[in-house]
């Protein structure tokens, strides 16, 4: 019967064998560089709120007001999670945009739940619909409005980017507020146009660089490029944090202007602005 010592020895042997059988795929320096980048990214993640942006990305801070207006008018809200999906044959960059849109959906769903506005979420991928279901459920649980969840729905539209656009155009039903966030491609303009038809309030976002123009042209609020990933972090920032970031931004701009101006003056006329500022 093997004892613990023998088991440990076997385990160490196994680890030793695995280490012997391994080699670095990228070489020492690229591997260290890759892991170093991961470390920097993790340090960025450790403080998830956005540091240098204080403006209202995608007009998401005004979602509660939009939902209040929708509730007054008896309207509904529509949220499309783009056309990339999560388990579809799209690039991983596209798929991650869908995942980035889920916290935005959560923010909208909480506002809709509080205001009692029915929210219709659409996607062309069943896994995305499952995630959306979870987001809606969590929103109603967080706002203690489970009894209103029946009014909201998630809908799988069918496979294909063209399908999402065609259904958006065909079913343009004038929602009070319309949102499209996630991966978009050549169908973007059609999908966004169908989504915004008759909507009193819109917010669209995609990280697809080629579709930045479509988002800018169609949406009242927009998240372009990296902003789609920034927005979920920014939603979390409290008022005083935003004010702090805004103040820091202004101080940085003022410092940069002073440095540039001081340098130009020093080069042009020998005026020592640093001396004046420091009281020398």
């Amino acid at each position, binding site marked *: 019967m093997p004892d613990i010592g023998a088991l440990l020895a076997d385990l160490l042997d196994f680890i030793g064998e*695995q280490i012997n059988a391994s080699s*670095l795929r990228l070489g020492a320096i690229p591997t260290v560089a890759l892991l170093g980048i991961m470390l920097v*990214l993790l340090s960025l*993640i450790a403080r998830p709120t956005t540091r240098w942006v204080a403006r209202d990305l995608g007009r998401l801070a005004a979602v509660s007001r939009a939902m209040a207006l929708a509730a007054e008018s008896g309207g509904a809200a529509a949220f499309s999670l783009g056309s990339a999906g999560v388990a579809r044959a799209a690039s991983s960059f596209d798929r991650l945009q869908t995942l980035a849109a889920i916290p935005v959906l959560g*923010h909208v769903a909480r506002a809709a739940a509080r205001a009692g506005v029915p929210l219709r979420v659409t996607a062309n991928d069943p896994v995305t619909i499952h995630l959306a279901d979870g987001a809606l459920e969590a929103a109603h649980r967080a706002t203690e409005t489970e009894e209103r969840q029946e009014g909201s729905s998630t809908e799988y539209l069918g496979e294909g980017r063209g399908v999402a656009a065609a259904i958006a155009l065909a079913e343009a039903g004038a929602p009070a507020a319309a949102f499209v966030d996630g991966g978009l491609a050549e169908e973007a303009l*059609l999908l966004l146009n169908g989504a915004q038809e008759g909507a009193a309030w819109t917010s669209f976002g995609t990280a697809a660089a080629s579709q930045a123009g479509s988002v800018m042209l169609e*949406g009242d609020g927009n998240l372009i490029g990296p902003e789609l990933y920034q927005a979920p972090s920014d939603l979390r920032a409290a008022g005083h944090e935003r004010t702090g970031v805004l103040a820091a931004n202004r101080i940085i701009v003022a410092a940069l202007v002073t440095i540039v101006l001081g340098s130009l003056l020093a080069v042009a006329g020998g005026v020592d602005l640093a001396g004046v500022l420091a009281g020398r």
Partner: protein
Amino acid sequence: MRRSLPTLVVVVVGLLLLVDYVLINPTLAGLASGLLELIVLLAAAAALAGAATLVLRHWTDLTERRRDPLGSGVLLAGFAVMLLAGFYPGSTGASDPAVRWLVAALLAPLLAALFAMLFVFLLTAARKGLTLRTRQTAVMLAAAMVVIVLLLPIGGTVGDSLAALSGWAIAVPIGAVFRGLLIGVAVLTAVHAARILLTVDGADD
């Protein structure tokens, strides 16, 4: 604690794939390959479940005369026709001539017709954009006009100069904007992916 199991699975799978990317090890490669196959299987199962849900939903709409029964009928008929073409006795599946004909004669023209509307919708969007954000939209449309002029099929010296200028515009200013956007997207994609991996919740108001 409710999320501890999914979190653990995500972290373990993510780290395993990362280590497999960095190290060459047969055991790790086998594990990573098995996981990736499992993901493909899960995606396939999800697609089947999605199709079943779609059919059930529209069947209910049709039988209970809810929403758009006509549209539901068309969808179910299309579904049935495509399934018949792919599964009739002796069919070769997706490469069967009947399936190919349905795709080439029905689906492709439908999609082409849909995308043909892009030009009209672009003009509508430009008008809407000008009412929403006059200055930014005007700059964007002016830049688009410049690019169109640069790409005009004109011959001679003028044409050559325009072609050279368009090449420069695409490589330098437009390329710079695209690179900037792509770098920003890549960095924040990595940050976002890691945040998902570590389940750092974003929206929490």
